């Protein structure tokens, strides 16, 4: 186990390094002057030079990359002050420490993810299993029907419509906004309700579909039949034998979804004007804010890698045949 963890974390670090290098150098693959981005109305060559110097763009690319990498482990000093490790540099645009802005945005993204997660796991898996249990009945048909239709929807299509109904025309709800849970739990809850609902609706649909089909698949496994042949009750077989096997594909997909959500639910955040990681990432990459983009990229990769490891561990717990190696 421990050995597994060590080996996986090492490879994770390696991969993150590669990603960083890849991103960094691809950004320089086309000649572009990052200074121009922070240069406003009177963009004279002198001013550009000044900006370049301030951003350390006058140094050779390799040096810049080296500094960036060193910064992550050792921290760096900037005109705006010392940036302690893990230092992902300073945003070209805002001049803030990338790490700080990421940390500043993360609570929102986390709240969005967790809230949505709870909803769509509860409802998604619940409905899915119910449908599988009542396979062929009206319940099943309704559940499957609704889920396949909803899963074909998109947040950016559903979001505006929901807002239009519940906020702008009826005024039943306030516009979504993020209040830190620590400040005011109820405001936190109310503020994120709509995004959660919209996000969860689509995810719920997908998880309903998935859990239903995997459950049905499992129920057709021979060992499940054996369990019945032993005289175990339908419930018991359903929840002990079939469910255990159904968890594997579900955990797999869940891992993927979680990592992408934690890396920032871009669409959700933009649809509801929320400032999370995803928004930060997109804005930074659209404005060629290299350090910020790198930061976001690594941040996302980090979650993907972590969740891969977690999923593998989960496998080992679910299925004794899997060995962590």
């Amino acid at each position, binding site marked *: 186990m421990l050995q597994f963890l060590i080996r996986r974390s090492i490879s994770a670090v390696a991969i993150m390094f590669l990603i960083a290098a890849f991103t960094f150098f691809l950004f320089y693959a086309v000649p*572009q*002057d990052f200074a*121009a*981005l*922070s*240069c*406003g*109305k*009177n*963009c*004279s*060559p*002198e*001013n*550009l030079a*000044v*900006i370049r*110097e*301030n951003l350390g763009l006058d140094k050779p690319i390799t040096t810049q990359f080296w500094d960036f990498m060193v910064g992550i482990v050792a921290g760096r000093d900037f*005109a*705006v*002050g010392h940036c302690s490790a893990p230092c992902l540099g300073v*945003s070209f*645009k*805002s*001049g*803030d420490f990338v790490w700080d*802005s990421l940390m*500043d*945005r993360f609570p929102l993204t986390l709240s969005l993810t967790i809230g949505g997660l709870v909803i769509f796991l509860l409802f998604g898996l619940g409905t899915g299993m119910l449908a599988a249990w009542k396979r062929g009945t009206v319940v099943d048909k309704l559940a499957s029907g609704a889920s396949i239709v909803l899963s074909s929807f998109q947040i*950016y299509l559903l979001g505006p419509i929901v*807002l239009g109904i519940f*906020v*702008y*025309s009826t*005024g039943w709800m*306030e*516009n979504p*906004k993020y209040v830190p849970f620590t400040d005011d739990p109820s405001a936190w809850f109310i503020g994120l309700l709509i995004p959660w609902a919209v996000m969860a609706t689509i995810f719920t649909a997908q998880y309903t579909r998935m859990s239903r089909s995997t459950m049905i698949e499992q129920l057709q496994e021979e060992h499940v039949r054996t369990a019945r042949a032993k005289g175990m009750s339908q419930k018991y077989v359903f929840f002990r034998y079939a469910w255990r096997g159904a968890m594997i594909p579900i955990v797999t997909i869940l891992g993927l979804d979680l990592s992408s959500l934690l890396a920032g639910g*871009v*669409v959700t955040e*933009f649809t509801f*004007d*929320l*400032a999370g990681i995803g*928004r*930060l990432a*997109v*804005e930074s990459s*659209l*404005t*060629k804010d290299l350090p910020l983009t790198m930061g976001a990229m690594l941040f996302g990769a980090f979650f993907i890698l972590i969740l891969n490891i977690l999923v593998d561990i989960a496998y080992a717990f679910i299925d004794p045949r899997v060995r962590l190696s």
Partner: protein
Amino acid sequence: MKPIRSRSVRAIAAIAVAGSLALTGCSSDSGNESKDRAKTQDDAASQQKPVQYADAAASNGPAAEVAGAKSGGTINVYVQSDLSHMDPGQIYVSDAGQFANLVHRGLTNFQEDKNGNLKVVGDVATDSGQPSDGGKTWTYKLKKGVKDEDGNVITSKDVRHTIERQYSKVIFDGPTYVQTWLSGADYRKDLPDGPYKGKHLPDTVLETPDDETVVFHFNQPRPDLPQALAMAGYAIVPEKQDTKEKYDKAPAALGPYKVSEYKAGKSLKLVKNTQWDAKTDSVRHQYVDGYNFTTTIDQASQTKRLIADQGEAKNAIQWTDAVDTAQIQDVVSNAAVNKRTVKGYQPYVWQMSFNLDKIKDKKIRDAITYAIPAQAMVQADGGRYGGEIAGGLFAPTLPGFDAKYDPYGKLKKPNGDLEKAKELIKEAGVKEGTKLTYAYSNSPRGQAQQVIIKDALAKIGFDVQAKEIDRATFYEQIGKLKNPYDLYMTGWGQDWPSQSTVVTPVYDGTQIADGSPNYSHINDPQVNKLIEEALKLEPAEAAAKWEQAHKRIVEEINPAAPVYYSKTIQLFGSNIGGAKYSVESSYIDINNVFLKQP
């Protein structure tokens, strides 16, 4: 995902200190629109008075109370992206300019009466400044009891520091008028490290005989100095408070409000600055307890929220963004909502700049000018409330604006005059399918207008190569002298209501340089000469010369086809009082707003 508007895009929106223009009176846009529109321009024309330089009396606080004003409460501000800067030295664009109105104070400031007439008054200084030596020397005395947010009294040293730090590498984004007037175009050489290494400008340039007095020495008359100093870019940065780069994140306030919390790309909170003394300020008020900025709300949902007017949106205003073009109809066609708008001209003129190094034949330029369907271009930018077809290159916000001026018949033929254009093309002997490279900023509007331009120029036989440029670097790209493009849409706005701040930067051949706003690279001796003369004159006399230059530029050189004057329409919540269009900022007047029910 909505388009992300970068600061550079906004950068062209100068801090407009417009020649008086009372649009606020006519917010009732019901009834016959065209008549109404005409009317507004007549007002504009009729009311143009030159800006007055006020004396000490007018410069003394407190400012005249706003009728029915209450104090207390917090105003919510919707913005779609961060303020570009908070360090005054870096501030050159309107969003930060509005902010500067609340937080910063300069030597002088603009005072606007209810008809939108402007005076330059002393702000930190006792008056708008005492010229001597034929306007080559300007002397300022400081008011007593002006303090920064920590209670330090402001002295002439702070003023000097403010000017001098603009020579250092810390500042690269703000206006450069005063520096260049004092030390010439390459002013940075005179004080490379600014004041930070203990060096200072010689007294022959900037003199501080005592703690209350500052004297500027120029090598030629600078009649516009009081207006230049009123720019946020020259607001005071107290020596003790200056943290160089960090100052842009946490500036020290002299104005009625100070920054209490700032989260990049997210939010900004302003609270009362207790050290601000109303008696020293003849312009600002301190009605509300503070402002909460949310910097993530794009125009579309700003508008939706304000139309809906639910909950916190009741106390909300738009900052420098406008009503979302798609929703203008909903706003103006609904009387209740329309009551909650401010409408007015923006100071800048959208023009199709020709790269004169590439399109040398005036006939071709004229042909294109005739061909452009101005109407469609305006519609791509929000229709009538987004802009108004332009006849010339001077905005309605400039003194001496003439609404009838229309050398290319754009007003008569809003969708372009293709016949005329085709003739000219024939005369010019351009063969069918000649390539023209049109550079545009890759924003939704840029894309839409690109389609129109392509369509129109194709009709007169050009093969238009539409080249999109990352909207973040658009102006930098086309600002390059050696840029490979033939034409590009540019907009420029005055820095204060004087033609000098338009003609000089944009059409003065002597100013041509990488990154200078002379995007067409026009260099006409006659124009240059007129400019040189005009700059030395008092605004009043100068006007004639500017007009002469304007005609010369538009009719005889045509470096840029006038397309449309931009206009703005902003919404505010139902609990906002005192909201009116500010001629000075060309946005909602931030000095007068309060909450009806705090």
